[in-house]
């Protein structure tokens, strides 16, 4: 866009600085997690640990029960992801490929709820879970995350690009609509499902206020809630906390690194947020 030499040089310098600033905190927390306690509190701070140790990881996973929190987070994130992929693709398919009364109105109502953040209506959600006596359960934790407004919109966009002729051909072959949904639509929107899946997984994994509200005992903590609560204790040590932070980030980082192309493409086409 701007090919002037001074601009190109400035671009390299500025972008490198910001990229370093973006990843520096991760490097620092990893180093802290691997240091011994005296090294963590040393002044001036040392960049690298002299005797790298995994004791903080043992402590956070074993003594502080983070393994259980990770398990809970995984259960919630995977159930939410599965449910959202199913509901979004089904509703997206219907809105993309069928004509029926009130289609525009129904779609507009769904879209209108997209922009309103969960924090606005968290109280009635809580009261509903409270009312059916399901507090502190996996059901309660997953319940608000089985649908995603944005997911319906996103899958509708993806499925609209599937040619009608393919669906017609399947119909002529005698396929019913459910079969078309499973064998044609889902099969042809794999890339979109992947991007949405990553997004749904990370949304459920990262959510903080909902578990904070519905969880009452430690054994139902999610990783986020466990980490936030642990660091609120009166006397805290940064070693185990850093180890906890590393553990909590790791799944996101792995998923992102593996699927970065799908994710970046998802943002490019629809403004998908991750």
């Amino acid at each position: 866009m701007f090919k002037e030499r001074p601009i190109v040089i400035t671009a390299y310098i500025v972008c490198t600085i910001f990229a370093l600033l973006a990843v520096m905190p991760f490097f620092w927390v990893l180093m802290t997690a691997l240091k011994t306690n005296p090294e963590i509190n040393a002044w001036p701070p040392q960049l690298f640990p002299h005797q790298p140790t995994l004791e903080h990881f043992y402590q956070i996973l074993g003594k502080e029960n983070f393994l259980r929190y990770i398990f809970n987070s995984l259960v919630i994130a995977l159930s939410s992801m599965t449910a959202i992929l199913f509901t979004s693709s089904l509703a997206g398919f219907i809105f993309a490929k069928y004509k029926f009364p009130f289609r525009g109105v129904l779609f507009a109502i769904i879209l209108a709820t997209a922009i309103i953040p969960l924090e606005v209506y968290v109280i009635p959600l809580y009261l509903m879970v409270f009312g059916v006596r399901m507090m502190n359960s996996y059901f309660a934790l997953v319940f608000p995350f089985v649908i995603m407004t944005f997911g319906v919109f996103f899958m509708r966009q993806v499925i609209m690009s599937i040619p009608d002729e393919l669906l017609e051909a399947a119909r002529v072959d005698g396929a019913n609509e459910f079969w078309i949904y499973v064998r044609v639509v889902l099969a042809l929107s794999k890339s979109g499902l992947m991007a949405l899946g990553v997004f749904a997984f990370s949304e459920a994994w990262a959510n903080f206020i909902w578990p904070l509200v519905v969880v009452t005992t430690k054994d139902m903590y999610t990783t986020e809630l466990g980490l936030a609560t642990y660091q609120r204790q009166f006397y805290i040590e940064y070693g185990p906390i850093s180890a906890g932070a590393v553990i909590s980030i790791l799944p996101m980082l792995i998923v992102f690194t593996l699927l970065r192309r799908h994710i970046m493409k998802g943002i490019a086409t629809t403004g998908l947020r991750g």
Partner: protein
Amino acid sequence: MTVATDSVSPRASGLSSRREEWRASIRMNHLLWVVCALGPVLALFSIIRVYPILETIRLSFYRYHPTQRTKPFIGFDNYIRLLEDDAFRTALINTLQFCVLAVVITLTLAFTIALLLRSIERASPIYEILLYIPVVTPWVPASVIWKWIFDPQHGILNYWLGFLGIPKLAWLQDEHIILYAIVLVSVWKMLGYFVVVYGVGLRNIPDDLMEAAELDGATPWQRLIYIVIPMMKPIILFTVIIATIIFFNVFAPVYVLTASAQGAPAYDFKVVIGEIYQNAFVFYRMGYAGAQSVVLLLFVLTLVFVQFFFLRDKRGV
């Protein structure tokens, strides 16, 4: 966003009536399928989204304590109390201050970086991925990492600032500095997303437009002001709205960063979501918290209407 009007229902052809009948039966079949497939999803939407949003508004007119038997209707009393609530006013001012700072800094930096990345297009994917790593990091661990960096005694930030001759700052303990600490974390966390979004918009500006301007002797600055920025206006507007909503809902970083650490009490920085959380789930004043939620709802809706108004205006011209 427009709702497409395409259709897959078979076009009427001049074939035999028998065939028409067959098609009509299929269309009925489709309607049944649409109802069966969409019905449950719509039901979930009504239960999990539409009903709670409306119920929040209803609650705000009641004195609602979940364990008390009577939940009397009190009209606008909650809202009147809201006007006299110093904590909520502080929270609102803090949140607005934070929001404006975070939006302006994040978007300005993101736009600059996205623009600069277009000059080094070949290297840009790696930069975008590095900048995107904080975006995929959840707020809680992100804030936990920064809390350690901000540590007044052992934190690396104070250590580095020491080289510049700046004395140790109490980042999270000083009521004037904590705002900037939270802004710093939030900008760091969200920058990458907006760099990528702006990148998409900037790549869509036709090259020949820029080249033509260059041939006409336009300086880079003139090209930026007269071509790039006007063409990016809709995307800039979109990002302002999205960023404002994201930052106005700030809660997890505040929850983490304002917790006292190592015996050093952190300053209790109040934000809107924090107030809602406290009133609803610590004091169980759910009607009152409902009124606070409605304020938040109105704020979000205003933003959406502003966006709608501007986009519509643009199309009309």
